[in-house]
């Protein structure tokens, strides 16, 4: 089917303000949703689900979170790992303190707690920008991890420091977290969660809050002069971004790895999420998914491709290769296409829209 806007005249501004005003986009989303919900659960193996689909979904949440803060509101952050850890430990504390609390509320609650923590560490953003703000968020990263390591209350005084995520069920008896949960149940539960979170993020970014974020990002002085309160706007970005990162951390611990440990949320993951956002596209929800997908797939491809091609590349070489490819791509996207894969996708669509007559 051709990708065309022509003939789809909007008869009202409300119709033009739909989330996906173009029919082909709506069809595309519906197809993706149908595959993700209906086909993948039936055909995906345990390996595919647990090594690709679940981490992809978890990292998509984190990438959306960071994209809200950095891509939309223009506040650079390296604290993502710290906020994810906050979400993981908040979920652990919530679900052990209130064993009967529905897992959905455990996740949402951990997001809310992380939002408050994010606001706290967002306060310096009123005074400092760019590189200096990134350094300040780095402080959040190290402080939070240090806190969860040092204060035994967070791990419920467990001696090893590594704790398994408690098993929790939805609809009475369908286990979705912990080691006894079936991988398909975990995947579907996470998928629905991600669907709602992505929808909410997309909506937020096209309403007045999103415009305030982008205004602050593009020119904070002009934003203030047209009546946007800088502090409130920046802190709202920190809050909502951290809400997403917190839920990502909770999902990481409860659904992906099944254990809650600070080590998983080191500075490395902060950088990884930042790379996802840069490669996928700053200021794009779609880009958050593309970036997360790319970052999750690349190591898998690098690990498996040599086998398939009959090459024998040592494991440490592969991980070096991974870093080199990431590095090159980041430089490419930062210099050539700051809006990332999402922008490349859009350019492709625009070309298609005009094809075959470019003028």
């Amino acid at each position, binding site marked *: 089917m051709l990708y065309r806007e022509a003939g789809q005249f909007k008869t009202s*501004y*409300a119709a*033009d*303000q739909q*989330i996906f005003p173009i029919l082909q986009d709506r069809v595309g989303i519906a197809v993706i949703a149908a595959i993700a919900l209906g086909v993948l659960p039936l055909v995906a193996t345990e390996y595919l689900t647990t090594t690709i689909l679940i981490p992809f979904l978890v990292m998509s949440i984190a990438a959306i979170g960071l994209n809200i803060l950095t891509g939309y509101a223009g506040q650079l952050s390296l604290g993502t790992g710290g906020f994810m850890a906050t979400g993981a430990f908040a979920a652990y504390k919530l679900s052990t303190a209130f064993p009967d609390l529905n897992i959905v509320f455990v996740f949402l609650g951990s997001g809310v707690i992380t939002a408050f923590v994010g606001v706290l560490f967002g306060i310096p953003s009123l005074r400092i920008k760019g590189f200096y703000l990134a350094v300040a968020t780095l402080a959040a990263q190290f402080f939070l991890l240090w806190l969860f390591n040092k204060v035994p209350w967070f791990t419920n005084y467990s001696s090893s420091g590594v704790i398994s995520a408690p098993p929790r069920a939805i609809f009475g008896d369908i286990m979705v977290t912990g080691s006894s949960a079936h991988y398909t149940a975990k995947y579907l539960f996470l998928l629905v969660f991600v669907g709602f979170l992505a*929808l*909410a*993020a997309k*909506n*937020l970014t096209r*309403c*007045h*809050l*999103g*415009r*305030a974020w*982008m*205004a602050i*990002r*593009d*020119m904070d*002085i*002009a*934003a*203030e*002069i*047209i*009546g*946007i*309160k*800088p502090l409130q706007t920046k802190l*709202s970005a920190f809050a*909502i971004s951290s809400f997403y990162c917190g839920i990502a951390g909770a999902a990481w611990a409860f659904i992906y790895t099944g254990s809650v440990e600070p080590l998983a949320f080191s500075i490395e993951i902060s950088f990884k999420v930042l790379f996802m956002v840069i490669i996928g596209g700053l*200021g794009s929800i779609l880009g958050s998914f593309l970036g997360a997908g790319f970052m999750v797939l690349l190591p898998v491809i690098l690990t498996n491709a040599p086998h398939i091609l009959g090459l024998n590349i040592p494991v440490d070489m592969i991980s070096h290769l991974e870093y080199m490819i990431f590095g090159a791509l980041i430089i490419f996207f930062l210099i050539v296409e700051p809006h990332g894969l999402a922008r490349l996708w859009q350019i492709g669509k625009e070309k298609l829209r005009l094809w075959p007559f470019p003028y």
Partner: protein
Amino acid sequence: MSSTAVSAASGSDAFTADGRHKIGGVILSVQNISLSFGGVRALTNISFDVRQHEILAIIGPNGAGKSSMLNVINGFYHPQEGKVIHKGQERKRMRPFMAARAGIARTFQNIALFKGMSALDNIMTGRNTMMKSGVLAQAFYLGRARKEETEHREFCEKIIDFLEIEAVRKTPVGRLPYGLQKRVELGRALAAQPEILLLDEPMAGMNLEEKEDMCRFILDVNKEFGTTIVLIEHDMGVVMDISDRVVVLDYGRKLADGTPDEVRANQDVIDAYLGGGH
């Protein structure tokens, strides 16, 4: 854009023969303003009044302090001496967003648009302070959020029609030519339905045709909505044509203040500015 649909002006205003709102009392008064940056004196003891519904031009050579004056009015610069009285109330030290919320909008000498956003979104941002829906309503595009988005969109579309920028409403403003960017910036200021509109060189760098369009927009805004306009402009022809009164600044001091004819006849102005081959 019809005046009944969007007019913020009160119905009791009297109109002049050509349909403009009659110039009223003093709406904003700057008194004995002095402003310096380190050793540089940008403004020295400046006083003048802005009257309701008038078009007031501020002229003067580069570096005279014109932009600084606007920055004082909208709370971006804080003068060391003097006061700003807005609607009879002396203003305490204020932040720019407070001025915006008090009905003062402005455009900039160097365009200050949000480059990554579309023309429409830039203009919509001008109405952000009027939107009150909460985070959850926005996240799920429910009730109030949906209603607000649609209503404000309709208002902004009127501005877009008025400024004749329908064709570029979805284009990121960074990709628009200079003249259109200036229009979008005016649109963003208008979206706030300001009582006072501060325009810093709205026609700088434009060709004749673009200037004529911009003049028409400014006059129409003033006529239809009674918006009080303070504008900085270099083109003397334009100034003499469209303004009710003119304030002349030179090296941070006020040289003259009066109708275009009075200013044109003022010997100080002739010596310092008009006579200088401008």
